């Protein structure tokens, strides 16, 4: 008998889609403008067989709006946006945050230009969660985690994937049992608030007789609009912030490879983190005392972790943007932050990072 493979050879996009299906995602939407990510094609083929709905929408706004509706109908939902798709869908994501709608959005921007937009592109003083996989295996694992955060905290979660990660095929193990968190569907408590701002309210679905008032306006804990009401506005915004920030420890994750004697830390995410890893090995061979810090959670930002590992050290930030990550590090560190910026569309190489390490060590 032929043994079934325990390891699959998948692209990041395929791994992401498989993770979503394994976790119980039953609804996926994308627009043709965002099919380049590869996730939509996989979902079109496999999601209906898994009992789910594949919704092909005209643009990214519609894809995310469709997901919001389906989420309130009780399903776990995912959308994929590529290139400028997040710009298109920003207002819809804003509605999802304000109404505390669980929703996973896989964003594949150009290069690493999407870091700040994933946080601030959605107009409003909100908190949302952004995760950054750096391998096909992590596309699987962090998609699963994205759904769990989304359900537990009733908040949209963005999986920000570099196109290199989305398109490269690697070994992905799907053996490990995955933990599944589901939103509470209790009908005995207000759906949009609680006594404490760090508590997540239950979310009964449409059609369960609750006369849900799912309002994009400022609202009270029953969803009743409270337009131009200062107290209600303050309460709602505090709740949307505190719900996430009070769980920062569980949400914010980073991976550090920092030997005791490290003097230079490479801080990066996604594809650049892989180059950093390789660069660290090369640098150590030449005697440079280098360590790496890889951000797995981009937002809320890992201020504390970064300070813990990088205060007082020299920090090099390899990123494929004009400083979107570097500026965050400059903001939170009392350290020498040296950006290594590459915006010609190509990935940063380990040798380019090594060259920078040599330069700052002179």
């Amino acid at each position: 008998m032929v043994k079934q493979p325990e390891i699959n050879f998948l692209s990041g996009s395929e791994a992401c889609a498989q993770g979503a299906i394994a976790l119980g995602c039953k609804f996926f939407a994308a627009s043709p403008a965002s099919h380049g990510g590869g996730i939509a094609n996989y979902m079109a083929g496999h999601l209906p067989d898994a009992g789910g709905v594949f919704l092909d929408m005209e643009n990214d706004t519609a894809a995310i709006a469709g997901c919001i509706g389906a989420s309130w109908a009780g399903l776990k939902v995912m959308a994929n946006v590529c290139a400028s798709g997040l710009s298109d869908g920003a207002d819809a994501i804003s509605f999802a945050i304000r109404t505390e709608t669980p929703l996973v959005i896989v964003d594949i921007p150009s290069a690493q230009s999407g870091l700040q937009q994933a946080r601030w592109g959605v107009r409003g003083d909100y908190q949302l969660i952004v995760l950054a996989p750096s391998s096909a295996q992590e596309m699987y694992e962090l998609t699963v985690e994205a759904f769990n955060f989304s359900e537990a905290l009733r908040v949209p979660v963005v999986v920000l994937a570099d196109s290199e990660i989305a398109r490269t095929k690697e070994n992905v193990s799907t053996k490990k049992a995955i933990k599944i968190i589901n939103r509470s569907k209790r009908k005995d408590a207000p759906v949009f608030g609680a006594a404490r701002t760090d508590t997540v309210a239950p979310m009964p679905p449409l059609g369960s007789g609750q006369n849900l008032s799912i309002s994009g306006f400022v609202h009270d804990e029953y969803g009743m609009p409270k337009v131009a009401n200062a107290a209600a506005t303050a309460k709602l915004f505090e709740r949307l912030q505190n719900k996430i920030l009070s769980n920062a420890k569980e949400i914010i994750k980073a991976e550090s490879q920092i030997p005791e004697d490290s003097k230079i830390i490479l801080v990066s995410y996604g594809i650049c983190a892989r180059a950093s890893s390789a660069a660290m090995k090369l640098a150590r061979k030449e005697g440079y005392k280098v360590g790496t810090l890889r951000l797995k959670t981009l937002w809320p930002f890992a201020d504390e972790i970064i300070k813990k590992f990088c205060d007082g050290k020299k920090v090099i930030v390899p990123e494929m943007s004009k400083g979107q990550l570097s500026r965050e590090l400059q903001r939170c560190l009392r350290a020498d932050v040296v950006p290594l910026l590459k915006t010609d569309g190509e990935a940063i190489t380990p040798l380019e990072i090594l060259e920078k390490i040599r330069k700052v060590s002179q």
Partner: protein
Amino acid sequence: MSKKLYSMLRPKMMPHMLCRGCGHGIVINAVLRAILDLEIPLTECVLVSAAGCMSLATSPHIALDMLHGLRGLAVPCATGIKRANPALRVIVIGGEGDLVSLQTTHLVHAARKNIDITVICANNHICASNGGAASSTTPVGAITATTPKGNTQMPLDICKLLIGAGASYVARYSVAQPKALTRAIKVAIVGKNFAFVEALTMCPTEYGKRNNILEPVDMIKNLKISCMPGDISLGASRKGISDRIVIGEYGRK
């Protein structure tokens, strides 16, 4: 008002914010009566409202499952709800300021999908809630906040557009024909296809005042005079303020 109709409202959230003489009340009344007459279980109904006076009018006053204030997003959101749970009756309700300007694309593609949702569009020919700007159905020559010397853009015939896009059922009536309007809404809800009902209505505050029609009853009289039963797939024949408007239904079997 009948007890049953009243039970669909949240009396504690009154008063509503509609102006004296607004036609939205009649449209909402028609929708609620249609739901009651069809004896649809209320737990199956989901209303999705677009931005504007219509969303502020429907929420929080109607006690049904509702998503509201979805500026530019109501139609695709409704599509998602229906695909996720086909047992729900999904009704989009909005003004033409949002539905016809911001959601033209979404309406066309929902018609193409033939998704079983009902879209009720209250058309008062002006974007009233943001101060009286011209909308995409404002007649040529009408005075609005953004066309103080008279509108020069052609009003869009959304019914003809959606028939062209493949919509199964499209109807246009005005609040001066409330019974026909209610009947059309019932046909729209009952059908298992994409259905669009344009409810011509009036805004005395923003449109009427600027165009020398001071009394709401005169706006109703105007609707009575200009509405003309006919084949709506041939177009509304309406360009200017005093032109006739074709009312009727397309696709009723």
